[in-house]
């Protein structure tokens, strides 16, 4: 009967609201994978001209990996236009990213004719992949709710010969997997004195003895002494890419590109080299914290090499001295042996033992810095925190691969993070608080002018270790060893990582202050997201307590909280898309030299904001170079030389490439010049050979 049914439903809702630990957070506004799938299919049906839904592969659990290709119809082939790639939730537990990606598609498709977004669709292509880790995607709706990064592959995480035999267990029945503390004097953790919800590390110097062993919530199902160490999820696609891949890490896979999700993504992107800019929605935020090196390899720009004796003799170098790669190449490239065998600079670098790039190139970072300024402004305007910490991407992650190997201008954005608690303004003087960003914008002189007292307070406020007191910092700054921005970067490096550090089963208490901040936010904004410590008894009789923050809420807040961040990020991506590189032929001059001979000179340039190639792309030889070509044929023949001039990259706004040719042409013949690129479009210009002097 109808009445009974709805009565039941109400009862069920009431029951759900009044779960064992009170009202748990609901993620019902987030899209499960099936809904994402339906939504994408719906869009491709409703907008057949703009949207092409591509299935680029399947997850190890057999689910489709989708990319929506969005571009206005007409004009150049969408796969040949400069393109932005936006990929979300390859992490698996970053569902907020999926929402942001869907918001972007929605915004693009709803853009009224003539709007800036519609204009972008006329010139560029958007590849948007809202759910890149389908097997993990629905963990946020799981019962119990546990954070998951792995696909459906079978992995023996603890290499004991058994697969998935010790997953987490919801011991307190609150529907989520949080943390567990077991009384253990060797455990290394204790309750924070100011907030007993927070755990801090034992410390000899601070006279804090350990009281607990801290693990994630669950039984030791396989009785091996480890808790929840083999949870049945598979390889983490976001750890399975080849830049700085972490070997001997079961969740990263036996080798990079092993996970079908990461392999499919690389195949897709490598097969379509028009992507110039990539935004990953994931746990890291490269605009709130500049990307750090993941270690390993070598930095070619400054690395110096000893040339092996035999080669040194051949090249005329001193085998005892050290040279940069450029110095060696300048001599080596002209040797007949090098030329006849088509030996490349990269092969010489390899011969000298050079490693891969490990740091974001300074030129590329300069672009990121500019993006960061605009991004923070936008966050502030949207009422979002712009000085909260941003996490770093991990080894073997998707974003570092996009930058270091695929060669895109790539960045990861976390869409939303727990805001930094607001600072009280200085009561005495009513001055504004000295935020990190404010200091970063100062000159050394301005900062020094604050005086020792204020600087000291600023350093303490930001938890700078005591050995860097105001005096030391001021003397460094006076000596030019550091400037305010460099100092702030370091402070951020030391304190960064809050946003990406796992709340459940990670390293609780490591950033005690940030954790308290997060808990305070959760209490006020996401009721039910924190479970107080509750006593449980483990099967072996050991006493333990279970409690902590919902494993998703730190990255995936209630939808009402997330909404303004979605809009701000869609706008950010649209802003970035407007900066895509675009080549054009700036000038084409044909001068007659008499006798039917002409000098043709063409200048191609990139007047757009971004360079055609990142500096890293040029080093990694990712994407084809910019090529300026004179079309030759019956009417236009080269007197000497070759039809193409090439450049490794054209800088944004100022970059140009000049081609000069000596041709014999029939009077009135069409002189046609093309400029072609992988990811910055193409252009053509035509002139006529004059009647001749």
């Amino acid at each position, binding site marked *: 009967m109808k009445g009974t049914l709805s009565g039941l439903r109400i009862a069920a809702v009431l029951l759900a609201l009044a779960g064992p630990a009170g009202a748990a957070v609901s993620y019902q506004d987030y899209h499960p994978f099936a809904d994402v799938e339906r939504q994408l299919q719906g869009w491709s049906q409703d907008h057949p001209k703009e949207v092409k839904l591509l299935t680029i592969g399947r997850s190890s659990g057999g689910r489709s990996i989708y990319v929506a290709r969005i571009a206005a119809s007409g004009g150049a082939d969408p796969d040949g236009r400069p393109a932005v790639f936006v990929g979300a939730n390859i992490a698996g537990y970053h569902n907020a990213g999926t929402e942001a990606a869907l918001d972007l598609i929605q915004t693009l498709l709803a853009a009224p004719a003539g709007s800036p977004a519609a204009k972008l669709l006329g010139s560029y292509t958007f590849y948007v992949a809202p759910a890149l880790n389908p097997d993990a995607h629905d963990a946020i709706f799981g019962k119990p709710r546990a954070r998951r990064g792995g696909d459906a592959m079978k992995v*023996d995480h603890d*290499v*004991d*010969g058994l697969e998935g035999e010790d997953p987490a267990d919801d011991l307190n029945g609150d529907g989520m997997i949080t943390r567990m503390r077991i009384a253990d004097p060797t455990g290394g953790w204790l309750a924070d004195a100011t907030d007993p919800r927070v755990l801090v590390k034992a410390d000899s110097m601070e006279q804090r003895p350990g009281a607990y062993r801290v693990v994630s919530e669950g039984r*030791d199902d*396989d*009785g*091996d*002494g480890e808790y929840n160490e083999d949870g049945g999820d598979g390889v983490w696609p976001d750890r399975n890419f*080849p830049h700085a*891949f972490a*070997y*001997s890490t*079961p969740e990263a896979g*036996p*080798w*990079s*590109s*092993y996970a079908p999700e990461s*392999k499919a993504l*690389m195949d897709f992107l*490598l097969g379509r080299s028009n992507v110039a800019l990539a935004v990953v929605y994931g746990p890291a935020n490269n605009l709130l914290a500049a990307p750090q090196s993941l270690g*390993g*390899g070598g930095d070619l720009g400054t690395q110096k090499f000893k040339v092996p004796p035999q080669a040194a003799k051949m090249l005329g170098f001193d085998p005892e001295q050290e040279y940069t790669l450029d110095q060696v190449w300048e001599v080596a490239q002209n040797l*007949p042996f090098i030329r*006849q*065998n*088509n030996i*490349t600079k*990269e*092969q010489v*670098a*390899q*011969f000298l*033992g*050079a*490693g*891969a790039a490990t740091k974001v190139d300074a030129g590329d970072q300069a672009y990121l810095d500019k993006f960061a300024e605009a991004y923070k402004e936008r966050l502030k305007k949207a009422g979002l925190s712009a000085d909260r910490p941003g996490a770093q991407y991990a080894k073997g992650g998707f974003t570092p691969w996009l930058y*270091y*190997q695929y060669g895109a201008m790539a960045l990861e954005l976390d869409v939303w993070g727990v805001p930094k608690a607001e600072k009280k303004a200085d009561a005495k003087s009513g001055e504004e608080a000295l935020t990190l960003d404010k200091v970063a914008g100062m000159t050394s002189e301005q900062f020094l002018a604050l005086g020792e007292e204020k600087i000291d307070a600023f350093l303490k406020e930001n938890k700078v270790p005591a050995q860097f007191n105001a005096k030391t910092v001021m003397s460094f700054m006076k000596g030019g060893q550091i400037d305010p921005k460099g100092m702030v970067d370091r402070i951020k490096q030391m304190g960064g990582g809050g946003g990406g550090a796992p709340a459940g089963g990670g390293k609780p208490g490591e950033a005690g202050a940030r954790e308290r901040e997060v808990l305070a936010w959760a209490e006020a904004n996401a009721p039910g997201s924190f479970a107080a410590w509750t006593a449980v008894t483990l099967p072996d009789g050991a006493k333990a307590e279970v409690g902590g923050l919902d494993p998703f809420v730190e990255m995936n807040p209630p939808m009402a909280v997330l909404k303004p961040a979605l809009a701000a990020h869609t706008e950010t991506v649209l802003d970035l898309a407007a900066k895509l590189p675009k080549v054009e032929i700036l000038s084409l001059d044909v001068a007659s030299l008499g006798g039917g001979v002409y000098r043709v000179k063409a200048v191609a340039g990139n007047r757009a904001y971004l360079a055609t190639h990142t500096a890293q792309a040029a*080093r*990694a*030889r990712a994407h*084809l*170079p910019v*090529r300026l070509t004179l079309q030759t044929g019956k009417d236009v023949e080269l007197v000497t030389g*070759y*039809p*193409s001039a090439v450049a490794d990259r054209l800088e944004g706004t100022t970059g140009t490439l000049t081609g000069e040719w000596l041709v014999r042409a029939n009077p009135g013949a069409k002189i046609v010049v093309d400029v*072609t690129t992988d990811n910055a479009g193409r252009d053509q210009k035509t002139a006529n050979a004059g009647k001749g002097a």
Partner: protein
Amino acid sequence: MRPRIPELVFAALALLAAVSPALADPIQPQGNPPAAAFNRLHTYEEVVDLLKGYAAAYPRWTRLESIGKSSQGRELWMIAISNPATGPELAKPAMYIDGNTHANEVQGAEAALYTVDYLLKNYGRLPRVTEMLDRSVFYILPSVNPDGRALWFKGPSDADFPRTVMVPVDDDRDGKFDEDGFDDVDGDGYVTTMRKKVPLGQGTHKIDPKDPRLLVQVEPGELGDWLQLGKEGYDNDGDGRVNEDTVGYVDPNRTWGFSWEPEYVQAGAGAYPLSIPETRAIALWALRHPNVAAVQSYHNNGQMILRGPGAKADPPYPPQDLKAYDLIGKEGEKLLPGYRYFISWKDLYTVHGATTDHFYNLMGAMAFTNEMYNPPADFDKNGEVSDEELMKFNDLLALGRQWVEWRPYNHPQYGPIEVGGFKRDVGRVPEGWALEDETHRNNAFVLFHAYHLPKLSIGDAMVKKVGNDLWKVEVPVLNERAIPTMTAVAVNGKLHRQDVATVAGAKVLSSGLVSDAYLDKIEIQDHRPERLMVPGVDGLSTRTLFFLVQGDGDITVSFDSLKGGKVSKQIALRETGAQRAAK
């Protein structure tokens, strides 16, 4: 509790194997086995025919399997050889052998086939071969790169080309793929070299005064009248460069999963690790065959027995593993006169993403790369083989077979030139009469390596009563060969599951590893005593297991090693007296 019947039977079998009965009978082939000749090279089709021939003649002892397809769709045929009566393949230690990863390094396939032939025909005749086939498995993939092999035999090719697999790569980054490779410009079936006579003063070389077929660089102060123009080819794509975008260029020995670096650091690396079907097929196969504990990958040339690390930045090998590596490598130098046991990065050059580094660093197997052959033409014994000495070898030992005489040719870019030089099977491949010797010696080295696959047995246990129905049992597990059941790199890197010891017939209250049997030092495993995790049994040593059990009668102790096979033994719960098993 009484042990179950199958366990008793298994224990009895193990006991029988341990006393090593009289030599088994040779394998009776069905029909005529292939009469392979190892004094000549074989095309890909001939290699496949031979493999099919062995599989047909020895159906119970072989398993022919295509483990995948090449870039152009050729089958990757692998033959597995083992004694069907001594248990399933995966329960026995295994050796994997491949050849011809680099298309031009052809004779690795012959060396691999030689082992197939040798094992099948000598089982029951030679005790060492018999023992190896009874207790271990051989997986042999003669040609990793069948497409490249096909191209090498047919051309255009030379001694150095192609190494690559047939995946198109735009080497010169002009948007076109493989459009400017080598050409057999004079149509004689060989890619040799081009040279050009020029007016005095325009050249870099002159005719070698000792041999007019050779050019030498001019001495300081001299003018040259010859140019060396490199290998046969045209500027096919009109960009002012010759042979700069050849067929392929992914190097199958730079694509593997360990220490992989992108193209700009490691030429030939491919788009990402194992991006090509050939090596990915092998890597996935290897994941399904964790019993592989020994690996040989045949290459040429230079007469080297190589081990990793491939790059200076890779972790150095742990000393425990070096014991076995050095034993096998140094013995190999004796079996293979002229060969040197080398470390890749230090003694040869840096290699990222090599086959053997993948097998060692990711699979935990002990892997060597043999670089076969060096032209035996150092007549003056100065340590180097000069061009003149190569010519002497051609003239007097090969009676001129190796050399293609200079012939005039009118080249579209260079004008009148001369074309000539050594044939493709010169320099890296022995002449027929030396090939059989080379394949046999390499086979002998591989069999020495395989002889040292871990060989486990359980010795006499020490049993002591410590209470009512309560027994302390110490069980020595002996590995009588050099390769550990778990390499240190596998233990440290958690590459695969550890060896597992279990007890049937009594309740296990506690278990552990005995570190000093005489001083009663035992490392107790804190948890899950019924599943004792053992970080391997080192080569040529004994690992003693400890169990505290509750029960009476007999127990069966089983030891299960991924790479060392499985052994078990029935032990009576009865005081054995004072003698203790040594560590």
